[in-house]
């Protein structure tokens, strides 16, 4: 009985020693952590979209401002020369080499502040809108054109509104 008790005590002490050895065997590992901060993408308007002066007729027509600023017409719209017209020009800045997407509006309504309006649609740009546009060193210049729909006997007046151009890194 005395011997049994002694063996039990030895076994217990051995178990404690092993447990203690297991705890001391835990080690640590280092892991690297890093982050790359890119220049946020930004876009600013340099020049607004201006369809110039137009004279309507009894037939509907359109006025098209191309990306390069060329103004053409279809149908009964009469282009009045001597004034100014321009495509919209925007500046995109950010991290050189990153690709980004461009979202142009589907349509926007110009208003004379009263009851008359005209629709602008078919927005176009000289940059890639499929998300593969790579930001050039020093930024990109985005030219935006569109089509203005002039109704038959469109009421005279100054028609204005704004539209939004969206850009985002992919």
């Amino acid at each position: 009985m005395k011997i049994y008790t002694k063996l039990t005590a030895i076994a217990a002490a051995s178990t404690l020693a092993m447990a203690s050895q297991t705890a001391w065997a835990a080690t640590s590992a280092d892991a690297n952590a890093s982050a790359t901060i890119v220049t946020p993408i930004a876009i600013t308007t340099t020049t607004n979209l201006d369809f110039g002066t137009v004279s309507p007729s009894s037939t509907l027509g359109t006025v098209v401002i191309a990306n390069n600023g060329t103004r053409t017409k279809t149908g009964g719209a009469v282009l009045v020369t001597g004034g100014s017209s321009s495509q919209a020009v925007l500046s995109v800045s950010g991290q050189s080499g990153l690709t980004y997407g461009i979202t142009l509006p589907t349509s926007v309504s110009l208003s004379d502040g009263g009851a008359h309006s005209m629709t602008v649609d078919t927005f176009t740009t000289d940059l890639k809108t499929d998300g593969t546009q790579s930001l050039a060193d020093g930024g990109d210049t985005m030219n935006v054109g569109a089509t203005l729909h002039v109704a038959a006997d469109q009421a005279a007046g100054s028609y204005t509104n704004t539209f939004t151009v969206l850009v985002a890194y992919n």
Partner: protein
Amino acid sequence: MRMTSIAAVIAWGCASGSGGARAEPVTATVGASAEIISPAEASAAAATRLLFSQTPGVLTIAIPGAGSLALTATGADSASGTFTFAASAEGAAALRALMADLAAGASGGTLSPGVTVSGFLAGQGVQLVVLGASQGADGSGSLRATITFD
């Protein structure tokens, strides 16, 4: 120890996937504008006042009671369809009357540089832009204008 290493790799992968270059979209507001002017409607009688010569580049304007006026093109832009015509001194008054008719008094018939009038004659869109003009006290003068047909 191996478990610790794997966990570190997973954590790295998560950090890379949720971060990267993705950022919130940014926008710019762009103004859009157009100026619509009223086309001056010529009277029914005026439909007979604008005749086209069979000779390209020559515009013949016939004004009842005032004879006719021939304008000869001095320059043409085939791309825009704009022709520049020169009027003789005696033709300036006749053209001024036509412009007054087109503008329905809006321009007062004044042949000042920059004056632009547009309208329709016999279904033909016409726009006149005065580039330069001089007029004497007796009504005579000279005119340089751009006339666009549409």
